[in-house]
């Protein structure tokens, strides 16, 4: 496969901007950086406005038109299967009134000052950028209209764009976009106020289901280039022997045997970080070779004696006990309403439960990989990274280069799930290329590397206590969430969860319970804790939605009816009233919590699966709902448990309300993917530690959903909204949190066995 070359233009769609500009385009809107766009926001800002450097309301950076009419859209968000390259292009093309057949997409390199924020996390690519991208398209259309009007000597108001042409109806004249590109490029970019957005009724692509992925053909024919696919002339290959225990380091090593392996070129020491882990390499001994097999065999031949460091005794079993003990004691209060003690004292019945959620690994199908070429005071990177500008700045700092001397070319990502937001592997590649005097080096992680040395989803013990009145309604609720924080990779030894982690379904849980307290016990981290698709919502949703079902059982009530009662009447609540201080970065007034919408998805999922229908013995229905990433999702699951305790899932209905939908086909696929991922979490996935080392090292131990456990049928119900002015919700992550409790609630309905420890594993075996 040819290497993508940033100067000559690659053979794949991920062309560099520089390469593209040097190529065939004759209409490239100027690329100046208006000072106002770079000005620091002085007032409070939310969403994309609050991101570093704000967003760039500048069409010149995102659209180019070639003489043949081909429209090239530069996508500044990273593609990892969620279809963002297609969705971004749909927004631009629709407003441009472009012919979809003439649209191509290139991937932006990492440059935040040029493209605006590029961190593809938080389920916000479209939430934050759909309006800027619409304006990009509308501005380009306006300039084409102005150019045509000038050429014909008619008022601009008399011309209009239609399907890649500008028409003058009065004279019957028309010109194609390619014909107008050069003249339009010479015009000044109009002010935002002068740009007319399309009437949503005229949308051709936005909100439609028939737009295929722009990368489909390349992916299905093997032409797509992922990080692991990049090849450069003279490229070397490298793997790293990293400390098996987080915080460990090399005590001594002997590379003699490794250097005797045919193809091994050099053995290089990488120093561990001195402070918090953040995105630094873990350190260790790298083996650089002429091919990947030699690198792997060379690593096997290394003789390394490790100092395991302060986490040598980390054991999941003992840590679970420690978290449980912490969760049984009063702790830091992070949310309080009413009089918890008084209400508990008056309760007719009290219920308590503890839930355990293990570490998880993102385990993207493509493990981390990067190619680096560091020479002549410059660095060029090709990598599957979710955050290219962070990668650029972090690498520049580690190599002692100016950020402008570092270019990060982003490939397709074979899955990300948060792992590829952390560019430690790119830094490894950069350090090795420098150590090899500038030779390009492909640094790759094996599956074992990925599972042994990850940024793990936090292990958690969730303890809940409730007091019920005589009618079985909850009048008091105490939730203690004990879990190590993601903050531990950024600051030395923090003990408590950060506000944004608590704001993932805990401090913003919209439950109609008058006396409510949330506490957060101390929980030190012993491994790198990182974000994983939907993050802390996973444990919070599992615990809360399981506990509500337990309360329903204690009250002798139908779980779905009880869930609706606990959600309470339809109402709109600002999350800050509840105690949340994150709200996914969104304005709490523009993005309040609407419990009517939460109720609606519950009712929709229940209706979809036929809630209340009779099922054979050993089968059951479960339901759960969760609000996250400003989107409402409910899941209803049907499970069957056989006499040996084996779980199958005949059907899942998932209902989602994410506000207006840009790309409904992608909404559906993200929900389907969430269900499949959630099945793995529920039934089999667990990362555990013994003596500081991971017990699971490959997919035989870390078992994700497979063909035999995946639901036979997934039905996605999308709540449709006609109001395009409504704010968008996220899509990539919010489908996941309610999947696990829906399944475990269904298992309870089928067997009477309550699952309080994930994964289910062999807990149902007789």
């Amino acid at each position, binding site marked *: 496969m040819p290497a993508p070359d940033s100067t000559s233009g690659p053979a794949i769609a991920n062309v560099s901007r520089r390469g593209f500009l040097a190529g065939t385009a004759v209409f490239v809107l100027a690329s100046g950086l208006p000072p106002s766009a770079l000005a620091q926001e002085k007032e*409070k800002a939310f969403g994309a406005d609050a991101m570093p450097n704000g967003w760039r309301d500048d069409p010149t950076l995102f659209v180019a038109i070639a003489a043949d009419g081909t429209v090239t859209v530069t996508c500044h968000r990273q593609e990892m299967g969620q279809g963002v390259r297609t969705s971004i292009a749909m927004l631009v093309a629709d407003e441009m009134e472009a012919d979809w057949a003439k649209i191509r997409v290139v991937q932006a390199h990492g440059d935040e000052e040029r493209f605006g924020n590029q961190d593809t996390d938080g389920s916000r690519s479209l939430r934050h950028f759909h309006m800027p991208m619409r304006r990009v398209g509308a501005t380009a259309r306006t300039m084409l209209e102005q150019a045509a009007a000038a050429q014909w000597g008619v008022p601009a108001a008399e011309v209009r764009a239609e399907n890649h042409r500008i028409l003058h109806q009065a004279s019957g004249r028309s010109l194609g976009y390619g014909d107008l590109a050069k003249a339009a490029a010479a015009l000044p970019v109009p002010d935002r106020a002068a740009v007319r957005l399309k009437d949503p009724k005229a949308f051709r692509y936005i909100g439609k289901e028939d737009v295929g992925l722009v990368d489909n053909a390349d992916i299905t024919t093997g032409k797509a280039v992922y990080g692991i696919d990049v090849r450069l002339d003279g490229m070397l290959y490298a793997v790293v022997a990293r400390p098996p225990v987080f915080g460990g380091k090399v005590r001594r090593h002997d590379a003699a045997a490794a250097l005797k392996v045919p193809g091994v070129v050099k053995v290089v020491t990488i120093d561990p970080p001195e402070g918090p882990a953040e995105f630094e390499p873990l350190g260790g001994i790298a083996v650089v070779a002429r091919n990947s097999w030699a690198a792997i065999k060379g690593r096997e031949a290394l003789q390394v004696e490790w100092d395991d460091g302060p986490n040598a005794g980390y054991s999941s079993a003992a840590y679970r006990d420690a978290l449980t003990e912490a969760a049984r004691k009063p702790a830091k209060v992070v949310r309080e*309403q009413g009089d918890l003690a008084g209400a508990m004292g008056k309760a007719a019945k009290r219920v308590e439960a503890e839930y355990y959620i293990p570490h998880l690994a993102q385990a993207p199908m493509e493990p981390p990989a990067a190619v680096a070429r560091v020479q002549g005071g410059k660095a060029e990177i090709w990598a599957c990274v979710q955050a290219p500008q962070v990668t650029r700045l972090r690498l520049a700092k580690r190599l002692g280069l100016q950020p402008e001397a570092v270019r990060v070319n982003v490939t397709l990502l074979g899955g990300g799930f948060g792992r590829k937001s952390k560019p430690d592997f790119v830094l490894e590649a950069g350090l090795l290329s420098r150590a090899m005097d500038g030779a390009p080096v492909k640094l790759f992680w094996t599956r074992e590397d990925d599972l042994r040395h990850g940024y793990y989803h936090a292990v958690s013990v969730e303890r809940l206590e409730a007091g019920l009145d005589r009618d079985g309604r909850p009048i008091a609720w105490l939730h203690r969430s004990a879990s190590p924080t993601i903050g531990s990779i950024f600051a030395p030894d923090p003990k408590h969860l950060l506000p944004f982690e608590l704001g993932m379904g805990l401090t913003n849980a919209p439950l109609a319970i008058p006396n409510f307290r949330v506490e957060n016990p101390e929980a030190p981290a012993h491994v790198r804790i990182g974000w994983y698709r939907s993050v802390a919502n996973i444990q919070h949703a599992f615990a809360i939605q399981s506990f509500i079902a337990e309360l329903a059982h204690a009250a002798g009530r139908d779980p779905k009816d009880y869930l609706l009662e606990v959600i309470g009447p339809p109402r709109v609540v600002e999350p800050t009233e509840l105690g949340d201080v994150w709200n996914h970065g969104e304005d709490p007034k523009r993005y309040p919590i609407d419990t009517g919408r939460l109720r609606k998805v519950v009712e929709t999922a229940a209706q979809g699966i036929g809630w209340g229908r009779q099922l054979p013995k050993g089968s059951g229905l479960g339901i759960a709902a969760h609000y996250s990433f400003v989107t409402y999702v409910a899941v209803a699951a049907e499970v069957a448990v056989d006499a040996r305790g084996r779980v199958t899932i005949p059907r899942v209905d998932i209902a989602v309300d994410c506000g207006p939908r840009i790309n409904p086909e992608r909404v559906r696929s993200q929900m389907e993917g969430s269900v499949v991922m959630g099945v793995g979490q529920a039934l089999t996935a667990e990362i555990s530690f013994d003596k500081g080392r991971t017990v699971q090292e490959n997919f035989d131990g870390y078992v994700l959903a497979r063909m035999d456990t995946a639901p036979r049928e997934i039905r996605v119900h999308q709540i449709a909204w006609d109001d395009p002015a409504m704010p968008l919700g996220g899509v990539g992550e919010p489908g996941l949190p309610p999947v696990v409790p829906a399944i475990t609630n269904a298992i309870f309905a089928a067997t009477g066995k309550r699952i309080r420890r994930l994964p289910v594993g062999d807990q149902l075996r007789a």
Partner: protein
Amino acid sequence: MGHVIGTAALVLLLTGLTGGAAASPCGEAIGRLQAQIDEGAEAAISSSSGGQGVAGAREGQALEAERRDAPVREPAAPYQKEGKEAQAVQQAADAASGGGDGVMRAKAALNRARALDQKGDAACRDAVAEAEALLRGRP
């Protein structure tokens, strides 16, 4: 869309309280602090932005700075060029009371004060003082 009902109103609705039965030893202080907390909550949301990466980095460093009662360190994760990112983290530490941690806990303390105040319990003053201290970044 549902009706707009605030949490406090919902609590009253659910508990059947009608209010006004007891004197309000902390009413004025609670009202004053509530406005500060609302402002701080919005500042916290704004300063930690939308993604988990930026939020984790800024809140983590801001909280550490508050814990040590010291200026923020050099930013660990460069979500923008260092000078700007240092400013952003400092803003998260200052305006949002430790990346929002102080505001969040102050809100909890103030709600406790409110519950005590509704019962006419003078212990609400201690809870108000706690909320004030948390907002000042001195728990």
